């Protein structure tokens, strides 16, 4: 347990204290007590930067479950530190923002406890070396995210969104656990460092593609990649600070982190590279295309988040591509640096945009684009912040989004130089999709600014709009400031954070010395691509009324949401049908299943283990045994074919007495005695039951012949006989009864061996059989005496039913 472990667990500890505090003290907004927690963590993490900057790593172990190799191993390199700083830094801003956003009437205790829980979970994910611990924290993010989305738990949409995100991310998380276990099977360690050391084993293992696919499922579901992005727009029902924090800056980046973390491990595989690249690119283009048609501001931002995550994902794929194909290292570096840098940039501008959306929502009462407009003069500060962040998102200079968008386009264009092999004929698609995605990104970014602040002033907002209080503006202002600062002075970041993070992804120990600059000269193809994006985007934005009709063709029935809803519905109906199909409620059906299973298993066993038949050990059969067997056979047959229940009972009794005779012939007087007595009592009881049958259903008819039942019963009978013969023939050892015969008098001082076994050699059985009789007696007595029927007549039938 070191300071780092404490830093990770601090939010959870604080959550306990704050939850307690909230019960007793409510005069000051609870958020003020929460605020120091992320601040402390972020300050502490900043002190680690100098150590990590030069490629050093911090590795601390805390034993948790050492027997199964599940230790709380903190491993801090540039990548982990970058994410940790993002999490705690934006966490602090979000807490500050939420103080203004959430009124004291809300259940603040719940909110901050969930938020702090989430913070620990995210820090645990990014600063962990042990994959099982990573999975633990991963699921904690899913759970706390579920709780936060459903914060307003009285709204249906919140619950729907929470459930959806829970199902999808848990699904991915589970598959990811499978991937981790597969990796453990290959390498024999849960440590990511250890796995990287065992890289040759992974490269050779046939299980590697399996692990890749499973881990990618986890990353894609969490990071809302195609086709798992559908939960993110529905998660927008959460309070806006949650959307800003979880669904733009941190949780959705967990998948990015995972992919980045496992890049050194899996970059050798084409499967990994191409899946990430293609899915990322497609997600980027598809989500930015879809973002435009939404009218809810948060939905636009949600799709925008998906799109930006796709962009980062594709850059990571590209970074891995160079390692896989051995293409030029520069491309690799550029892509990885761009991915890391864009992670930071996206966290800043998207966090700010969400917060501004929250402000607009807070001050006007609506988030619908149709009802907003012309707020420029009313909310000038918000407008300024929106312009900065939205233009950064669109990728315009001088903001930080421009730098990464340039790097992105550059990487996507230079990818054409890589060796594609069989795919060379379609390689032009990659930059094309990237440019198209960027155009749509540009359009919706402009649309956000234009839709809220410019255009005609609309007057149908629920509240009279006015500028928001300073408290809520501080956080987006800080983030917007960072957008400009990072845009103008990117090299401030490159040496301190970006390079170590990129080194973490590439698993290299040498400093990269990246130099980021706004201006690359005219020769750079990315510049022209950006120019093209801006021009085409502006033109398309201007003529948007002409082409927006294409969204009408994008019907609800074709979306993945529809597929998800229908899938959920039909899985429920289907499982209901299956359950109804076999759970008939009739005991006879269940007995058929049980016996049928017995037959199937019995036949398989006989076929596999060999059937053993050896008649040499059999005793000679006497005439009396034959006669009694015949009696039993006849009686059984009569039971089966008789029409009268009385005859059946008598025949059953006669079978019992014949058994007693068998015991006599086989020299078992004690058994014969007991059998006779018991059989008499049983027959009497049967007669009592018969006597009390209701008059109405007393009509007696022959048992109907059913073929299935016949097959099953014949099968069971034959199998049991075969088993008996086989077991008897295969007898290997001498029976233990020799010991009993010799010692029955010597040790137990008894002459009757059966009784001595019952009460002496194996008295415990007898004890508990006595107990069984006692229980049966008490049970019968209770059933007869205890009548919990309600007294009033009206409810009598009802209570009868409930008793049944």
């Amino acid at each position, binding site marked *: 347990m070191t300071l780092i472990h404490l830093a990770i667990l601090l939010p959870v500890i604080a959550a306990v204290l704050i939850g307690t505090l909230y019960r007793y003290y409510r005069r000051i907004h609870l958020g003020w007590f929460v605020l120091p927690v992320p601040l402390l963590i972020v300050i502490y993490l900043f002190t680690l930067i100098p150590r990590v900057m030069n490629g050093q790593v911090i590795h601390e172990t805390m034993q948790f479950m050492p027997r199964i190799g599940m230790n709380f191993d903190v491993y801090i390199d540039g990548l982990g530190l970058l994410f940790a700083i993002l999490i705690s830094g934006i966490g602090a801003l979000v807490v500050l923002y939420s103080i203004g956003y959430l009124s004291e009437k809300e259940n603040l205790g719940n909110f901050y406890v969930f938020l702090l829980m989430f913070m620990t979970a995210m820090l645990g994910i990014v600063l962990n070396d042990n994959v099982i611990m990573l999975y633990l924290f991963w699921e904690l993010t899913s759970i706390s995210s579920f709780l936060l989305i459903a914060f307003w738990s009285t709204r249906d949409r919140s619950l729907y969104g929470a459930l959806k995100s829970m199902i999808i991310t848990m699904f991915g998380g589970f598959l990811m656990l499978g991937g981790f276990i597969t990796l453990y099977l290959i390498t024999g360690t849960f440590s990511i460092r250890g796995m990287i050391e065992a890289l040759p084993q992974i490269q050779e293992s046939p299980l590697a593609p399996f692990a890749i696919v499973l881990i990618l499922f986890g990353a894609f579901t969490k990071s809302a990649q195609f086709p798992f992005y559908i939960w993110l727009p529905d998660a927008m029902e959460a309070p806006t600070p949650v959307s800003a924090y979880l669904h733009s800056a941190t949780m959705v980046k967990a998948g990015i982190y995972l992919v980045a973390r496992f890049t050194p491990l899996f970059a050798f595989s084409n499967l990994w590279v191409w899946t990430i690249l293609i899915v990322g690119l497609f997600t980027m283009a598809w989500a930015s295309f879809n973002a435009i048609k939404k009218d809810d501001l948060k939905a636009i931002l949600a799709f925008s988040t998906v799109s930006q995550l796709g962009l980062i994902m594709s850059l990571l794929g590209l970074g891995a591509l160079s390692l896989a194909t051995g293409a030029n290292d520069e491309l690799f570096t550029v892509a990885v640096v761009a991915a890391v840098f864009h992670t930071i940039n996206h966290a800043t501008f998207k966090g700010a945009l969400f917060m501004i959306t929250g402000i607009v929502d807070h001050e006007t009462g609506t988030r619908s684009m149709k009802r907003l407009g012309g707020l420029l003069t009313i909310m000038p500060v918000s407008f300024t912040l929106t312009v900065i962040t939205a233009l950064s998102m669109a990728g315009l200079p001088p903001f930080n989004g421009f730098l990464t968008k340039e790097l992105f386009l550059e990487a996507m264009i230079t990818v054409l130089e890589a060796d594609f092999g069989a795919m060379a004929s379609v390689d032009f698609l990659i930059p094309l999709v990237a440019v198209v995605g960027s155009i749509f990104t540009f359009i919706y970014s402009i649309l956000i600014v234009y839709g809220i602040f410019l255009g005609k002033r609309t007057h149908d907002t629920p509240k009279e709009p006015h500028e928001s209080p300073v408290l809520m503006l501080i956080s987006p202002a800080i983030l917007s400031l960072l957008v400009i600062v990072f845009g103008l002075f990117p090299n401030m970041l490159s040496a301190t954070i970006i390079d170590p993070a990129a080194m973490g992804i590439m698993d290299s120990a040498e400093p990269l010395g990246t130099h980021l600059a706004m201006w690359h000269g005219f020769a750079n193809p990315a510049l022209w691509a950006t120019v093209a994006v801006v021009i085409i985007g502006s033109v398309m934005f201007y003529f948007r009324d002409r082409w927006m009709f294409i969204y009408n063709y994008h019907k609800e029935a074709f979306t993945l949401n529809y597929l998800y809803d229908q899938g959920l519905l039909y899985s429920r109906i289907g499982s209901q049908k299956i359950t109804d199909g076999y759970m008939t409620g009739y005991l006879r059906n269940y007995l058929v299943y049980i016996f049928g299973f017995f037959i199937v298993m019995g036949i398989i066993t006989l076929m596999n283990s060999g059937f053993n038949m050896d008649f040499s050990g059999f005793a000679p059969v006497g005439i009396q045994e034959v*006669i009694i067997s015949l009696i039993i056979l006849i009686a059984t047959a009569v039971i089966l074919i008789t029409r009268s229940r009385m005859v059946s009972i008598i025949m059953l009794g006669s079978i019992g*007495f014949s058994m007693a*005779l068998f015991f*006599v012939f086989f020299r078992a*007087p004690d058994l*014969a005695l007991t059998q*006779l*007595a018991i059989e*008499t009592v049983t027959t009497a009881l049967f007669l009592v039951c018969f006597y009390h049958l209701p008059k109405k259903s007393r009509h007696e008819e022959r048992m109907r012949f059913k073929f299935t039942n016949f097959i099953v019963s014949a099968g069971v009978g034959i199998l049991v006989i075969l088993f008996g013969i086989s077991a008897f023939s295969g007898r290997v050892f001498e029976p233990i009864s020799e010991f009993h015969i010799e010692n029955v008098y010597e040790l137990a001082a008894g002459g009757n061996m059966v009784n001595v076994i019952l009460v002496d050699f194996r008295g415990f059985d007898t004890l508990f059989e006595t107990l069984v009789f006692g229980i049966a007696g008490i049970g019968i007595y209770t059933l*007869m005496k205890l009548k919990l029927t309600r007294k009033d007549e009206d409810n009598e039938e009802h209570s009868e039913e409930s008793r049944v």
Partner: protein
Amino acid sequence: MNTFLDVVIIFSVIVLAFAMLGMVYRMLKGPTLHDKLVALDAFGVLLMAMIALTAMMLGTTHLLVVVLLIGILAFIATIAFAKFLEKGVIIQYDRNSDE
């Protein structure tokens, strides 16, 4: 054990077996329940004899308890059935009645 006794026992067993078969026939066929009950009672007595003969054949005394038990059971059963046929109940005291 001499041969004569063996022969006698086996002969008796066979005769008894035929008698039991006759009883079984009456039990299945008997026109009224009363016939069946009498046949059952007689069957019990035959069973006692059969077991006694078996005990002689096996040369053991342990089976005599069984013979006695069958005697008691057959008696009780016959009495119980007779009472059932006469009164419709076997144990007249009805625990559940409120009277």
